[in-house]
C-alpha cells in the first residue's frame, strides 16, 4: 500500500498515466500513428488525413471513453459507501437492467432515440427501487440492496425475453449494446460536465464519506447529517450511471474494480479515493476501448469484454498482494 503521505504523488502519477492513455487512444487504431504525429495533429500541424483520423474520429471517442470510465468508477465508489458493501457496483440496484430493457425495447420498435430511452429506463428503475425499498422505517442499506438485486433479476428476465423474441438481424446490435459499446459516442461535452460537477460536489464531502462508510449510526453520532448525504450520493450515483449507460451500454467491472483497486493502493480516505477512482476509471476504459478497436481490427470488440479481461487479472493481483483485507 502507498502511505497516505505519498497519496498526492500517486494522484500525479495517475494524472500522467491518464494523459498517456489518451495519447495512446488517439495514436492506435486500424491505422496506427506515432505519438509525434498525434501531437503535431493536436496542435494543428498534421496532415489532413491525420486531422480527420485524430480530431474527428478518435478524439470524441477517446474523450467520451475517459469520461464514462470516470463516471462509472465514481458511481461505483459512491454505491459502495451508500450500501456499506464492498461488493456494490453502479449496476447493483438494477439501474443498468432498467436502462437495457428500455434500450432494447427501443431497438425492437425501431425507435432511434436509444440513448434517451436508456436514460428513462435507468431513472424509472431508480425510482422503483427507491419507492419499494422504503419500509415502515425508511430504507436501510440491506433493504435497498435486496430490492435492487431482485429488481435487477426481473429486468434480466425481461432482457432475455426481448432477446429471445427479437428478429435475428437485430441481435448483434442488441448484444453489443448489452456488453458496452462506445462506437456511438459523438459529443462528450455533457459527460465531461457531469463528471466534473460530480467530482467538485463530492471532493469536499470526502471526510463525510469516510465516516458514512463506517456505518450510519456511528456517522450520525460523530456529527454527520446522514440522510441528506445518503440522498445526495444515491441520486448523484444514479444520475452518473444512467448517463454512462445511456451513452455506452452497460460496461461492467469498471465501477466495481477501480474504486477497490484504488482503496487497496492508497487506503480508504475518500478525499484521495474519489479523484484516484475517476482517473483510474478513465484510464482503464480508454485503454480497454483502444484494445477493443485494434485487437481484431478492422472489426471491433464490445469494450465490456475487454474491461473484464483487463480488470479481472489486475484486480486479482492487487488483492493477492494486499494484506489489508
Amino acid at each position, binding site marked *: 500500500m502507498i502511505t497516505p503521505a505519498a497519496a498526492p504523488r500517486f494522484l500525479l502519477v495517475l494524472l500522467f498515466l491518464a494523459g498517456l492513455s489518451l495519447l495512446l487512444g488517439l495514436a492506435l487504431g486500424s491505422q496506427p500513428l506515432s505519438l509525434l504525429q498525434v501531437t503535431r495533429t493536436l496542435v494543428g500541424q498534421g496532415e489532413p488525413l491525420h486531422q480527420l483520423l485524430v480530431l474527428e474520429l478518435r478524439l470524441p471517442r477517446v474523450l467520451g471513453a475517459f469520461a464514462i470510465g470516470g463516471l462509472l468508477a465514481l458511481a461505483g465508489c459512491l454505491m*459502495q459507501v451508500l450500501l456499506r458493501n464492498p461488493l456494490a457496483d453502479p449496476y447493483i440496484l438494477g439501474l443498468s437492467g432498467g436502462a437495457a430493457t428500455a434500450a432494447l425495447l427501443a431497438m425492437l420498435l425501431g425507435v432511434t432515440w436509444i440513448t434517451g430511452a436508456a436514460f428513462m429506463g435507468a431513472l424509472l428503475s431508480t425510482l422503483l427501487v427507491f419507492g419499494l425499498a422504503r419500509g415502515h422505517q425508511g430504507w436501510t442499506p440491506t433493504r435497498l440492496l435486496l430490492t435492487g438485486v431482485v429488481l435487477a433479476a426481473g429486468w434480466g428476465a425481461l432482457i432475455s425475453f426481448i432477446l429471445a423474441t427479437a428478429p435475428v438481424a437485430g441481435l448483434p446490435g442488441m448484444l453489443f449494446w448489452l456488453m458496452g459499446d462506445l462506437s456511438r459516442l459523438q459529443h462528450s461535452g455533457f459527460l465531461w460536465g457531469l463528471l466534473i460537477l460530480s467530482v467538485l460536489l463530492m471532493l469536499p464531502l470526502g471526510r463525510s464519506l469516510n465516516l458514512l462508510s463506517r456505518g450510519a449510526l456511528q456517522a450520525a453520532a460523530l456529527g454527520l447529517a446522514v440522510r441528506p448525504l445518503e440522498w445526495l450520493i444515491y441520486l448523484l450515483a444514479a444520475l452518473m450511471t444512467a448517463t454512462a449507460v445511456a451513452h455506452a451500454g452497460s460496461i461492467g467491472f469498471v465501477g466495481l474494480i477501480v474504486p477497490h483497486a484504488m482503496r487497496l493502493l492508497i487506503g480508504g480516505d475518500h478525499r484521495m479515493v474519489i479523484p484516484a477512482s475517476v482517473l483510474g476509471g478513465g484510464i482503464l476504459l480508454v485503454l480497454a476501448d483502444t484494445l477493443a478497436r485494434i485487437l481484431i481490427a478492422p472489426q471491433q470488440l464490445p469494450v465490456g469484454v475487454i474491461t473484464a479481461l483487463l480488470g479481472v487479472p489486475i484486480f486479482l493481483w492487487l488483492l493477492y498482494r494486499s494484506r489489508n483485507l
Partner: protein
Amino acid sequence: MSFSLHLDALVADIPGLTQPDALNLTLESGQIWAILGPNGAGKTTLLHTLAGLRPARSGQLQLNGKPLTRWQRKPLAQQLGILFQQQSDAFATSVLAEVLSGRFPWLGTWQRESQADFEIALEALQQMDLSALASRQVNQLSGGERQRLALATLMAQAPQGWLLDEPTNHLDLPHQIQLFDLLQTRAAKGDCIVMTLHDINLAARYATHVLLLYPDGQACWGEKHQQLVLPALSQLFGYPLEKIEHQDQWLFVPAVHTKQHNPS
C-alpha cells in the same frame, strides 16, 4: 462550561414494553451515572435516545437548556458522544484514520486535520495503550484492542457528555480500571459520564448516581447509596444477591444456591 442533559418526562421507545416509566432527571457535569438492568430492559435504547439517534416515544430532552431536537448534528456531536456496543468495519481503514474520525465534529467542510487534531488523536491512542498500533489496519485488531480504539475515538471527539454502552466489553482487568480512572478524571474536570454496565461492583465503586431499569418498564434513579440496596438489586436482576463489605466498599455477589441445581 458546564454540561446538562435534562430528561423531561422522557419515555424511550423500548420494544416490547407498553408503558415504561417516564424519566425525570438531569445528567450534569461531574456526575458519573451507571444504568443497570437485565438484558432487554432498554438500556441501549435509552442511551441511543439520549444521544438523539432515536426518537423518544414521548417527553423531551434538553441539552444545555435547548431541546435536543433543535440541535444540529455537528454542534451536538461536540457536546455529546456515544460509544456503541458494536463497531462495524465494512471497509479496511487504519487505526490512526479511525481515531482521527473523532475530530469530525470539530472540523469545517474545507478544513484539513491540523497538527493539533493529530496530537489529540495520538494522545487518545496513547491513553488507550494503542500508540504502537497506529498504522495497523482496524480489522487486524483483537476484540479488546477494537474496543479501546472505539474509546480512543470517543476521547478524540472530546465531548462533554459521554454516553457509553457497556464500555468494559472485551476489556481485560487492567484496562477496565485504567478506563474508569480516566472517566473519573474526565468527570472531575466537568464532564458528565453515563454508562450502561453489567457489573454492579464497578458501578458501586465508580458511579456517583445510578439508574435502575426493571424488565417491566419501571425505573428508579438517584444517588448511588440510595439505589444500590439489596432488595432493589435482587428484584432488578430477578436473582438473589448478597452484600459483602470489604475495606469500606460494598461488593454484590450472586447468592450461593441453597438448592442443588444438577439433577444428575
